[in-house]
């Protein structure tokens, strides 16, 4: 069993929202953004932290990185208390927010790295070696001298990743690292993370909407909804239980009554478009398509993978009683 590098015990964080209710009147509502969360992450893990928008993922990450102060509970990251030992912690962690620019907008990439080196006080030798390696792995050389504002999103994200890794962090926090990336860029980022995890023993905690990220990267997945952890376990078990069904979306030439095909059932009809759910283990997409085509002429079709938000909603709907996640379980994972 490896030592845990992230520990949360009964962590809570409320937000008070003020909404204008016309004129100068304001309504107050208290939101339990994080509501009694407890978990641990062992060194060297890649943890996928998922949940719908507003579920509390970002709030958790912000408390772990020292950005927000928890209301109650205990947090330890790399042996430090984030909000009190923010500066020491900052040297030990790397943070990347996919939607925010941490590099200097109007400076060439390499100059941003130079500044980061001094901000983090990275020894010259270490910096040189790290930069050399990251340049190779993330293929930065073609745009190393380009101002950040001129980079494509994919190039910028590679730059941001480099920026987050120059100081040899023990833990990397990634918030939506692949959002908006094309397939190639996304693949490159994932490969990089797997490699850094394997070779450096880097612990990674990533929040994402992309089930693909989770599937390729993490062994363990944590689902949060309404501020509570509703699933903690490995990805296969999750898929086995909740992601068995895929959806075939067909556009028929003519509107038709719900089709009756083997291995599939129609879940929704909208004009000539029908949604047919099927289980990946029992029916192949090809067979199902053939069966549909035999019933009615097809204009177009698409396959929808189970959406992570649907999965989360379904898990939540099933109630907290079946939740497998707990502090004991995660420490032995």
């Amino acid at each position, binding site marked *: 069993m490896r030592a845990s590098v992230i520990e949360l015990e009964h962590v809570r964080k409320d937000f008070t929202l003020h909404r204008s209710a016309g004129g100068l009147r304001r309504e107050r509502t208290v939101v339990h953004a994080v509501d009694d969360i407890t978990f641990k992450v062992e060194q060297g893990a890649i943890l996928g932290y998922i949940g719908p928008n507003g579920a509390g993922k970002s709030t958790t990450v912000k408390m772990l990185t020292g950005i*927000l102060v928890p209301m109650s509970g205990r947090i330890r990251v790399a042996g430090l208390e984030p909000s009190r030992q923010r500066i*020491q912690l900052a040297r030990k962690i790397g943070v990347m927010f996919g939607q925010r620019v941490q590099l200097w907008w109007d400076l060439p990439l390499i100059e941003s790295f130079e500044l980061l080196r001094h901000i983090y006080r990275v020894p010259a030798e270490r910096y040189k070696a790290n930069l050399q390696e990251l340049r190779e792995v993330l293929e930065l050389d073609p745009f190393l001298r380009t101002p950040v504002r001129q980079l494509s999103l994919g190039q910028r994200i590679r730059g941001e990743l480099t920026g987050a890794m120059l100081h040899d962090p023990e833990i990397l926090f990634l918030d939506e690292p692949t959002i908006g990336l094309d397939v190639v860029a996304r693949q490159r980022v994932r490969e990089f993370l797997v490699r850094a995890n394997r070779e450096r023993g880097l612990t990674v905690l990533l929040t994402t909407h992309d089930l693909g990220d989770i599937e390729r990267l993490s062994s363990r997945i944590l689902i949060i909804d309404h501020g509570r952890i509703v699933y903690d376990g490995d990805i296969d078990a999750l898929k086995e239980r909740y992601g068995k069904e895929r959806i075939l979306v067909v556009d028929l030439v003519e509107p038709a009554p719900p089709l009756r095909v083997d291995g599939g059932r129609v879940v929704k009809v909208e004009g000539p478009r029908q949604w047919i759910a099927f289980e990946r283990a029992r029916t192949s997409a090809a067979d199902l398509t053939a069966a549909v085509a035999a019933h009615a002429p097809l204009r177009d079709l698409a396959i929808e993978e189970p959406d992570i938000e649907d999965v989360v909603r379904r898990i939540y709907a099933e109630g907290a009683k079946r939740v497998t996640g707990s502090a004991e379980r995660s420490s032995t994972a």
Partner: protein
Amino acid sequence: MAEILDGAALYLRLVRARLRAQLQYRSSFVLDVIGTFVISFLDFVVILIIFTNVPQLGSWSVAEVALLYGISCLAFALTDLVIGHLDLFPQTIRDGTFDLVLVRPRPTLFMVLTADFQIRRLGRISQAAVVLVYALANVSIDWTSERALVLAGALVTGVLIFIAIWVTVICIAFWTVEGREVANAFTYGGVTLAQYPIDIYDRWMRSFFAYVVPVAFVAYYPALFILGKRDPLGLPTWASFISPFVALGAALVALSVWRWAVRHYRSAGG
């Protein structure tokens, strides 16, 4: 000490990087400098117009008021050069980019104050300098080394006082999106107030804007000493020497308010 040197070295690096970035757009930069130079003359034109109607303002001549103006505006222009980007700080709170400051291994205030360095503010600096030179050429000063020292010191303490005021009031941004406007009332309001002899203001206003928000110590008390004038408000001569202490006090207040405010940061997006 090593900490301070390291911080200073990092600051120089950041400033150099800012300068390089800004000089990429040279023509726009020149236009900005000229523009601010012209605009900053506006309030001095008002002073000149005032003095075509009256020989004195309170017990102050036009050149003496120009000295107040020169000192306070030069101090403020230098402040603006160094931390003028605080104007945009409320925006970083609103959109949550302040998060990025909090994950750096440096004090937050250091990161925020050093985030930019706008050389186009040189326009304002040169305007204030022109007025200060005009004032010094036209007032009769019995120059002594103490007086020269007080003048130089006034600029340094003036900058420190303005930075302290700006940092203190910009903390409002942690609670309301209108932080910039309110902060402006104190910063721009403060420098406007300091351009005139404070004995013209009513007592309640003087007490608040001169002593609580200590802009009276930017130009007024140093100028009294340089000019060898007696304080019409009756404060003894030593008041002219306490500016550095006032500045330090204001800086300490600013630092504690900042720390307290950062702990109340709630980050955009929840």
